[in-house]
């Protein structure tokens, strides 16, 4: 198969994204597209480029030839990476009890992820040999990298007795405690491994999950999945997107490298193989859309604590005005103390911040004929206790609880990215 057509398109992930063949699929969103083209042309890969976007609508552009680097040797992509448009999240249960099977799976997943993030198939799409099945399922063939990132997490089950890895458990990895307002369904909860595949083309994201699931068969079973569309969290420089409640989500998200160091990346108190990693919490949150839609906007704004159009805190005028939780209007708090932003604010939680990297989802129509939709909430933090603290408060008092339910949940330790020639969580096996 020396004439595999995809090879003509091969390039290292760091090469400039100027592949002519992709132009027909290149598209730009936003009124300032012309500006964005110029801005994106200087793209050079890796973390630096992720931050190279202008802080206007024009920065919210999609360039399907853009790629991210897998072998960073520091943090996994898909965390600080600017949120892409689409995301497929899936968790898996290990069915093997062989530590070697786990090791081979993580190594093969790592290689496969590296291939796909560079826009390459994981192997032959159409093998020469008669009777042969393909290594790559093919539906992302020639679609371009589309900013794909795949982020791996290790659940608490990896460190139970099955694999002899109990002694290597990350310091803070444990099942989440039961939290107020939890309506968790067992079929949407847990998992020994998680994969978060985000891309600007949903087919590229889905292909990644599909082929990695295929690679894992016999070692892992699928457990639960959410197909997310439309990012519902902003990265640095991105226009703040809206979740399905119609409100901006992520205005006060973690965006600066210093905040990542303080709140996201784990430090020296973790085992060496985890340093530069983080903890992932995933929650499938159902929204009762019909009920929310029949609530008047003034009340919706009171529930959230922000205005709907601008996204300004009810104590201010502009989106990025710092909320003033002490301000009163006619003797009443401008921002209701049980509004969503009041309960979640770091000012009211001992300074705690978490990185949110959420996506909207829909599962079609439920048994009652209602639209079945919500938020795939994904957070990253260097202490899962930070999520627990916030969710205890939100689950107890949030005005929003009338309209949402946490139906799925998972917690995972996210190891750092390997250097070239190595694989994710390799240090577990030495």
């Amino acid at each position, binding site marked *: *198969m*020396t004439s*595999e057509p995809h*090879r003509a398109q*091969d390039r290292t992930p760091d090469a400039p994204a100027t592949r002519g063949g992709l132009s027909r699929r290149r598209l730009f969103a936003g009124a300032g597209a012309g500006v964005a083209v110029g801005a994106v042309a200087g793209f050079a890969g890796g973390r630096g480029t992720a931050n190279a976007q202008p802080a206007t609508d024009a920065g919210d552009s999609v360039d399907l030839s853009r790629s991210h680097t897998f072998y960073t040797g520091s943090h996994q992509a898909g965390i600080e990476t600017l949120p892409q448009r689409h995301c497929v999240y899936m968790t898996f249960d290990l*069915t093997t009890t062989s*530590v*070697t099977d786990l*090791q*081979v799976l993580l*190594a*093969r997943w*790592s*290689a*496969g992820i*590296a*291939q796909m993030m560079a826009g*390459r*198939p*994981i*192997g*032959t799409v159409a*093998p020469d*040999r*008669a*009777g*042969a*099945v393909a*290594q790559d399922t093919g539906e992302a063939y020639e679609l371009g990298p589309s900013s794909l990132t795949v982020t791996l997490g290790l659940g608490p089950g990896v460190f139970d007795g099955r694999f002899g890895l109990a002694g290597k458990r990350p310091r803070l990895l444990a099942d989440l405690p039961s939290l107020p307002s939890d309506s968790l369904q067992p079929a949407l909860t847990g998992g020994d491994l998680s994969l978060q595949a985000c891309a600007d083309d949903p087919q590229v994201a889905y292909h990644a999950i599909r082929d990695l699931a*295929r690679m894992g*068969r*016999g070692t892992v*079973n*699928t457990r639960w999945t959410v197909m997310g569309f439309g990012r519902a969290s902003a990265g640095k420089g991105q226009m703040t997107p809206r979740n399905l409640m119609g409100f901006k989500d992520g205005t006060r998200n973690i965006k600066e490298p210093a905040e990542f160091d303080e709140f996201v990346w784990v430090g020296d108190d973790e085992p060496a193989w985890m340093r530069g990693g983080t903890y992932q919490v995933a929650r499938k949150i159902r929204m009762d859309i019909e009920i929310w839609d029949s609530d008047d906007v003034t009340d919706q704004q009171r529930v959230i604590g922000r205005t709907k159009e601008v996204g300004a805190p009810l104590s201010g005028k502009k989106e990025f005005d710092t909320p003033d939780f002490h301000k009163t209007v006619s003797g009443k708090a401008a921002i209701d103390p049980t509004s969503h932003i009041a309960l979640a604010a770091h000012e009211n939680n001992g300074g705690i911040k978490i990185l949110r990297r959420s996506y909207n989802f829909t599962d079609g129509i439920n048994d009652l004929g209602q639209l079945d939709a919500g938020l795939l909430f994904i957070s990253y933090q260097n202490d899962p206790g930070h999520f627990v603290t916030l969710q205890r408060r939100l689950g107890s008092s949030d005005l929003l609880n009338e309209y949402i339910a946490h139906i799925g949940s998972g917690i995972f330790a996210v190891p750092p990215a*390997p250097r*070239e*020639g*190595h*694989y994710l969580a*390799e240090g577990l*096996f*030495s």
Partner: protein
Amino acid sequence: MPTPLRRSSALAALSVLAVAALAGCGSSEDKGDDTSATSKGSGASQVNVTLASGGGGDECQVDTKELAAGPVTFTVKNESATGITEVELLSGQRILGEKENLAPGLPEVHFTVTLGGGDYEIYCPNAATEKTPIKVTGEASASPTGSAAQQLAQGVTEYTQYVNLQVDNMVTAVRNLQKAVDAGDLAKAQQAYGEARPFYEKIESDVEGFVLPGFDATDNHGNLDYLIDMRASNLDPAVGWHGFHAVERDLFGRKQITASTKRLAAELTTNVTKLAKVAKTLKLKPEDLANGAAGLLEEVQANKISGEEEAFSHIDLVDFANNVEGAQQAFEALRAGLTEIDPTLTETISKRFQAVTSMLEDYKDPNAIGGYKTYTPQLKKTDANKLSQTVQALQDPLSRLAEKVATA
């Protein structure tokens, strides 16, 4: 994970001796550029195959391209080639040895074969240059064509006998079903239905697609599989409903035996008798067994776990178990030859068959029709996920069998 090897042929010109040094070992040390091809203690020649990403894509570097006849140990290390997951040693189209599941960071792996003089190739699918020739000088050993190919041929002969036996048993069992129907004995007919189904299910991938002489391939009037095994959901209105499942509807759905039931049962006997005659003319090739085994598992996934096959009797797990048995028989028939070609894949498939059959143990029920629990909607709801994923874990490696045996 050393893979035990069954040696049965004294004339085998090559032998895969050692496999895998992977278990429990997590070294991530780079090996450096050790290109030495000198003999190590074992006395075997050494060939190092190194996979690395380079300017032109993933490269498959072979350090020694000429060596003397005799035992040769191939050491494969994936340094950084993310697109290469397997390496094979080929003689023409035949696979003499191979390593799969390669990925950067995993420890190096080895395989040893005894090579006679001649031309060979190292095949690295997806590498920038996929095939690297290797020249072995010295006496050409007795043609190695024998070993795997002969054993596969022997397996095909054995499997063909198995198919013939099932076909004969099927005719007998369907006659018994007809007798019970003719006698108007509903309970006995239901039992007989459960006893007749397994034989068809064991071999259906070998016998589907038979068209009676004089009929066009698109005309279901002459399609034996249609006439014997069609379900209500896929009926051709021009032909109507015949066969096992029409009888099943009467016995388990309507719970009554009518003149129509008797006509259907008699017709079924006629058609399986015709099928038996055609089946005995089957000339199978090794890849037919491989494809047939994979096909039977597709049947399990598509129709049994969904509960669509036995919509009235709910004996889907009987069909399931017999599809699996038929697939396993085909695999076992190929096993000796396949072990020569790809011991790792053989071992994987074998283990996954064990996982499926031991899972099925939990569903046995000697008091139920056909010997397995009735596949109720409740059981499907609780167990279908487990059943499906366990079968899928077998289906994936099994689907790779055909290409292995077709080139032997």
